[in-house]
């Protein structure tokens, strides 16, 4: 009974949060509601006994991805009203597409279409270990290709955004370590009474570093 109660609690909050992601006026709230939705999804995973996936969802999506979302959304200077201007216009088509998808899912669920699918038997071992057993053996191929895809994403992001800007002073540690006393210090014998400036012999270019 308690499980059912929690299921409905998580599911209801998740749906509500999902709705708010779409309709809230401020994108920051959208992201915050998205996080709430992720959380409740994690709760649902816990309920079906997939605690590993649940924690992964929180660590990866809530702990890292959504933070960066929030980061970007907060930094962007968006005119919210302008951004929402098209909402009314696109609402009908969005509703139609969404409606079709929902209808299909409902049809699939309540027809006996999915009867051919056999649910894998719940195994005795914990699901973390079960995942580990197949991830690096049976599904090694997919795992490696996923790694390649992530590598591509990384290379792509770097090559599209990184550019060397001139006029930026960077710290080059190797250069600092290579610096010797002789490069920057010069012992000058200052005669009594003369000011240091008049006897400075260091050429101006060398003084910069």
């Amino acid at each position, binding site marked *: 009974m308690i499980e059912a109660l929690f299921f409905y609690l998580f599911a209801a909050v998740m749906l509500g949060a999902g709705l708010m992601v779409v309709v809230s006026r401020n994108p*920051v709230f959208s992201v915050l509601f998205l996080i709430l939705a992720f959380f409740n999804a994690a709760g649902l995973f816990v309920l079906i006994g997939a605690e*590993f996936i649940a924690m992964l969802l*929180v660590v990866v999506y*809530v*702990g890292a991805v959504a*933070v960066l979302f929030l980061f970007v959304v907060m930094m962007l200077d968006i005119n919210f009203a302008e951004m929402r201007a098209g909402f009314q216009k696109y609402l009908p088509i969005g509703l139609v597409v969404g409606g079709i998808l929902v209808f299909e899912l409902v049809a699939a669920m309540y027809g006996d279409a999915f009867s051919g699918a056999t649910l894998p038997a719940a195994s005795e071992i914990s699901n*973390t270990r079960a995942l580990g057993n197949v991830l690096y053996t049976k599904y090694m191929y997919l795992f490696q290709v996923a790694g390649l895809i992530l590598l591509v994403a990384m290379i792509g992001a770097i090559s599209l955004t990184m550019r060397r800007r001139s006029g930026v002073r960077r710290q080059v540690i190797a250069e600092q370590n290579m610096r010797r006393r002789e490069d920057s210090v010069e012992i000058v014998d200052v005669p009594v009474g003369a000011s240091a400036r008049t006897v400075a012999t260091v050429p101006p270019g060398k003084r910069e570093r």
Partner: protein
Amino acid sequence: MDLIMNSYVIELAWIVGKIMLVVGPLLIAVAYLTLAERRVIGFMQLRKGPNVVGPFGMFQPFADALKLMAKETILPAGANKVVFMFAPMLTFILALVAWAVIPFGEGLVIADINVGILYLFAISSLGVYGVIMAGWASNSKYAFLGALRSAAQMVSYEVSMGLVIINVLICVGSLNLTAIVEAQRGMWFALPLLPMFIVFFISTLAETNRAPFDLPEGESELVAGYFVEYSSMSFALFFLGEYANMILMSGMTTVLFLGGWLPPFDIWPLNIVPGPLWFILKVMLLLFVFLWVRATTPRYRYDQLMRLGWKIFLPFSLIWVVLTSGFLLWTDNLPAVMAG
């Protein structure tokens, strides 16, 4: 039906009782940690620190708390009120809920779940939300800058923390915290994984925004960083959350590397000391190091902080994962569950 309801009620009461048993002492510990910080740093800097209220200044934290509670809660005019008030609560709550899985002794844990370490990791990775929400909702540039720094910093150091945790997991073969402690019966992981222990500890400093990584607060440039607009109880919640997080991180380090509740050696005078006492002693030792570091190191520059996280810790801990697993495989020492 009655019977079922009764058993539920009893169970619920038992759970609440256990939670109280953890949270109560925790809050007192937080209060005294603030005092300890001021006293310890005071001594290190040849000052006395607060020593007037009560014997040795023992009542100082309570005086502070009273003062904060008596003050007015100020809501900045341009602030987003809901998020502004929610942020400190979130920080505080997260600092408390993580304790659910920390084992204080054999079987002395509120929830002995399978994926305990992942739960801890997940909760600690959420801490950033309190900070970033506070910074954004304050509608103040200092607060916002602090929040952005903090978000980038915490996300960066989580990565290497995760890899360090993997090192430990490879040695244990379980995500359960009790199992992790039990696996250290022979030798604490701090010895074979010493470099990882150091990386982890430094990462916890960054994760809790403590010196020398306290740029999110950076009082010399950002006034107080993300909580500059907070006052009274909302400020107190941040404060409590930060210190509770320090204790939590120390607890996590203890469980992962210092053998949790186990005595250093399983010999007579040591092994009659109760487990929880060992646990508390180890946590206190780590907390002392936290304070010690704060008293003695200057603050990192931001680019140095990022370089340390991404270019040094991340590759280093990644290489160490390969080394650890390679070594265990080579010497045929993999945990039984993984060798299969």
